[in-house]
């Protein structure tokens, strides 16, 4: 049953990819200022929102893990933390390419770009602590996850607080017609993909936890060395 749901969601994603590409490249008009480059915007913004969703998921589950010490919260936090690294990398790379196209520079130490990089580096730190921190590292990593979540408002409002090259937060609400449809369908597609990736990664994390528990039990029973 579960497998069927996963397959149906994966099939919906393939249709969604084709649909969003059609809306972006054939229906949405060319932007008068940024021309064809603006097509990067739809997936870039959708992935930036998924980055936020992944970090919030990681932060909330980390907080729940610190309070309850239940493994399932830790598994969810770990899965979301790794996805945050993935989405952060996507956002930074696509943003950099768009920056080259629009401003003719790959990178600028602009407030939005710098705060996003710091947020991504925090999540890379989270994953590294989880991977190489040894016993007890899950609590330290949980603290990092909560810290990253607290930083999200700083990244979001950075374009309002400081003067930046990056477009303002009012761009998405100001979209009209087919541009709006392309934007929201991209967000829906990446939200479904995010949930699928999260569930798949969580299953692996649960398996790793189960294996570790079994190994400890077998060691205690003297069945293995």
């Amino acid at each position, binding site marked *: 049953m579960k497998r069927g749901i996963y397959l149906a969601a994966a099939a919906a994603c393939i249709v969604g990819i084709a649909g969003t590409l059609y809306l972006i490249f054939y229906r949405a008009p060319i932007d008068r200022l940024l021309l*064809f480059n603006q097509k990067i915007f739809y*997936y870039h913004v959708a992935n930036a929102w998924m980055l936020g969703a992944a970090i919030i998921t990681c932060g909330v589950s980390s907080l729940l893990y610190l309070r309850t010490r239940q493994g399932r919260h830790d598994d969810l936090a770990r899965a979301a933390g790794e996805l945050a690294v993935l989405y952060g990398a996507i956002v930074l790379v696509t943003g950099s390419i768009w920056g080259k196209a629009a401003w003719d520079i790959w990178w600028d130490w602009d407030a939005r770009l710098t705060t996003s990089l710091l947020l991504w580096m925090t999540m890379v730190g989270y994953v590294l602590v989880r991977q190489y921190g040894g016993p007890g590292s899950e609590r330290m990593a949980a603290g990092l996850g909560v810290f990253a979540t607290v930083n999200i408002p700083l990244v979001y409002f950075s374009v309002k607080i400081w003067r930046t090259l990056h477009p303002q937060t009012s761009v998405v609400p100001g979209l009209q017609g087919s541009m709006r449809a392309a934007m929201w369908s991209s967000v829906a597609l990446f939200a479904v993909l995010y949930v699928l990736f999260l569930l798949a990664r969580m*299953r692996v994390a649960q398996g790793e936890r189960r294996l570790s528990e079994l190994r400890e039990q077998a060691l205690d029973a003297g069945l293995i060395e």
Partner: protein
Amino acid sequence: MPNRMTRYARLVVPAALALALLAPVGLAVAAEPYRSPMREQCEGELAKDKGWQAELRQSVRPDVHQEDANITMRNKKHVVMAYGALWGLSVIFLVLMWLRQRRLVAEMDRLAQQIAKAAAE
């Protein structure tokens, strides 16, 4: 000698002042692009002569087309790079996750075999 210097100063100082005052005006005049006085007359003639219009349009078409093509190709390159990076990173993540799951299954099988062997002994 001092008299000669004073005479020079009397000439040089007002000349320098005049130059300093007139320089911005001169720069402004120089910065303004040339505008032909014959423009209106030509535009009037061009509006009447359809053949001339077609010839002019034909003569600028390759240059305009080339400029547009360059912009489109440059933009297209960036869009392809961004979309390629996005899906490439996603595929790398999926492959790494799949490899991790395979390793996990192999570890579980190994542990089950060890336990079964120990139980048999």
